[in-house]
């Protein structure tokens, strides 16, 4: 009798294994890259050959936790509508952008890398001989210099926000132009006017002055594009040797006027990748794939920390307090995850996912 049971269970096990194998054959290993910046959230799903399975872009609303949840929900809907939801297996999650650590701990990411490395890696996969990357995003602008396929130098705007996406957005709404048509306006201009680009405040007062002198909107927009390029090259690209091929990415690269202004200033062709705003997310996905391959080579034991799509059902809570340990009085922020279980006293259990903000590292949990 017992033997029979054993045989039956054996058969069952075998069939289960076969089923699993079948499912594995059907499923596609994908890597998720999340780029959460100051203005928008970008999610990309890449397969092993770096082709894009699914992509998503949305504006940040509320806290990064909320917008990342919203992003995951939209991604799920998109996957379900295309029928891919059951066919994919998320094998790794990489995060980048300024809120990378928060999102890494909330979603369950495997690595968090800086935007600079992510952008460089993504550009290198599309343009292997790229020598310069210009990146202008919502709140910051960077320049990355590469030689022989390695990052050699980089710089970020550390002081001034003039020339970033937010400033252009603000000026477009002040001029009454939709931001999407900003580039068109600049291309239509006939003559050059000069606008001070050293500082956002000067640029704005200069623009008002030029408008009151009777210049057309097109000319002012073109002058503004030229001024921003000058500011970028003087401020961020100061002292760097800018060699072609040059790749321009980030949200601002949608602006054709700015691309043309860069081409005029640098005297070289500017390449704008097709997925110009998603490059950071693509880079994060590539980095996590490389990381998983490396660990599989060493120990054949790679398991993603991704919480799965049920992260939507989890609730997160942030709490801040002032540490009284020393006169610095650091503001420490902790992120709790509600597990849904209850402890002996009937209170809800909370798990600490992340805690930071202190200077000395006493509280830090990453």
């Amino acid at each position, binding site marked *: 009798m017992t033997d029979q049971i054993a045989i039956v269970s054996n058969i069952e096990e075998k069939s289960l294994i076969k089923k699993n194998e079948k499912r594995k054959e059907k499923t596609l290993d994908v890597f998720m890259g999340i780029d959460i910046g100051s203005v928008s959230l970008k999610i990309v799903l890449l397969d092993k050959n770096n082709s894009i399975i699914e992509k998503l872009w949305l504006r940040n609303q509320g806290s990064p936790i909320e917008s990342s949840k919203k992003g995951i929900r939209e991604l799920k809907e998109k996957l379900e509508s295309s029928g891919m939801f059951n066919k994919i297996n998320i094998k790794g999650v990489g995060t980048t952008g300024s809120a990378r650590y928060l999102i890494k701990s909330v979603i369950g990411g495997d690595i968090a890398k*800086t*935007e*600079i*490395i992510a952008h460089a890696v993504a550009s290198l996969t599309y343009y292997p001989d790229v020598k310069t990357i210009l990146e202008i995003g919502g709140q910051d602008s960077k320049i990355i210099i590469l030689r022989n396929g390695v990052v*050699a130098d980089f710089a970020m705007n550390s002081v001034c926000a003039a020339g970033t996406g937010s400033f252009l957005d603000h000026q477009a709404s002040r001029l009454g132009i939709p931001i999407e048509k900003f580039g068109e306006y600049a291309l239509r201009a006939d003559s050059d006017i000069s606008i001070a680009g050293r500082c956002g405040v000067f640029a704005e007062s200069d623009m008002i002055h030029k408008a009151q002198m009777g210049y057309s909107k097109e000319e002012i927009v073109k002058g503004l594009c030229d001024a921003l390029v000058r500011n970028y090259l003087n401020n961020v690209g*100061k002292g760097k*040797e800018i060699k072609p091929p040059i790749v321009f990415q980030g949200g601002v690269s949608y602006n054709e006027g700015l691309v043309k202004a860069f081409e005029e200033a640098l005297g070289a062709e500017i390449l704008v990748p097709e997925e110009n705003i998603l490059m950071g997310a693509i880079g994060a996905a590539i980095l996590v794939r490389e990381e998983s391959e490396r660990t599989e080579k060493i120990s054949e034991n790679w398991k993603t920390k991704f919480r799965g799509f049920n992260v939507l059902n989890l609730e997160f809570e942030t709490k801040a307090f002032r540490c009284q340990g020393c*006169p610095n009085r650091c503001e420490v922020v902790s992120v709790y995850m509600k597990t849904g279980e209850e402890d002996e006293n009937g209170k809800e259990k909370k798990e600490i996912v992340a805690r930071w903000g202190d*200077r000395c*590292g006493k509280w830090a949990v990453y």
Partner: protein
Amino acid sequence: MVIRVSFPSMGWSKIAFKGLYRPIPGVEVVDPPVVTRDIVELGAKYSPEFVCLPFKVTLGEFINMIENYNCNVFIMSIDCGPCRLGFYAPIQERILKDLGYDVTIIPIQQDDLLDFQWLEPFYKITKVKGKLMRMVDIVKGIRFAFLKGSFIEDITRYEGIIRCREINKGDTTKTVEKLLKILDKEWDFQKLHQFHKVVKREFKKIPINRDIEPLRIMIAGENHIVLEPYINMDIVKKFGDEGIEVHQGNSLYGWVMHKLHVNFKRKTLERIAKPYIPMDIGGEAIWVIGHYIKCQKEGFDGFIHAYPFTCMPEVSARGIIEGQQPDPFYLPIQFYSFDEHTGYEGMRTRLEAFVDLMKLNRKNNPKFQDNYIEPPEIREIFDIPEKYEGINTFFTGIVEPFLNTLKILPKLKVNKRQHEK
């Protein structure tokens, strides 16, 4: 009225300053508190807007010490050079007078220590006059300051080298804090002369991993910024936690020795930097350039230049370094300019990206491979057994202090791997 004397802290250098003025009769030396956000905000509130950060920090410290510690005399170093440091003391005194505080700031002329103008503050701070104010006390103070200063330099140097190798995270930080506390309370010359043994004994207790070949960087720049951990966001610790061996180009002891014209390390750097910057323009400009070229020759992986926002000499140094780079692989460099902001996010992004850049360089660029030299300090601490057990008065009192001064000479470095080949 009791004379309560104090000075800006400048990181751990306050221990040495305290030793300098404590033996003077008729004064009470107040230990300046650790720099915090409140102090920096206080200083920034009453400072001119575009003045350099050390001015704001030291002014904040003065106001804090007047309000909370009842101090009435401050000692501030000035340099009769081309940079703004020369005007710190008079302008700060004027600002404090305008605020209604009746205090004096005594400047120390540190332009050239061999003309002995820096002895004047000793006579100015105390009301004790004539024979009661003995030269012996001054000599005592100077001995304390020199000994303590040299040990602070040792401790901070070992800290940067050992933190990247420690097995249990946090050991080095605890050891350093413990040692500096002991050093601060030590007022016995015989024990102070033996203190380097205590330092080595304590560091020897840290379990380390000696097989790794970490990335090496040099942090140099303006003295106050590099030496004050609150202001530079503890950059030495941050890089150490990332697993990077940090060498520091600045120390109070080295600076004082330089001003006595016996710091031959700095003389070498000056000679190296001569083609790029022919004279001392204030700040650390000439030595930063010297360090940069030297690190490139010694096979370092990166260089950090830290300076206060709007500092003229350091900005000049930055321009020279950026302009002279023949290609970006020369030696990766990051420039950190500090102001009173406390946000760490932008700095962290650049720090992490810089670490990634150096790691990629190690992997892909042959220029940065196989040139790691284990610093001689590691061998000094962990391999060489203690000599001369017990206290020999002649040796510890006369011979060892003399040998200690030899520390300012450049050390002979041996490339272990080349030796084996």
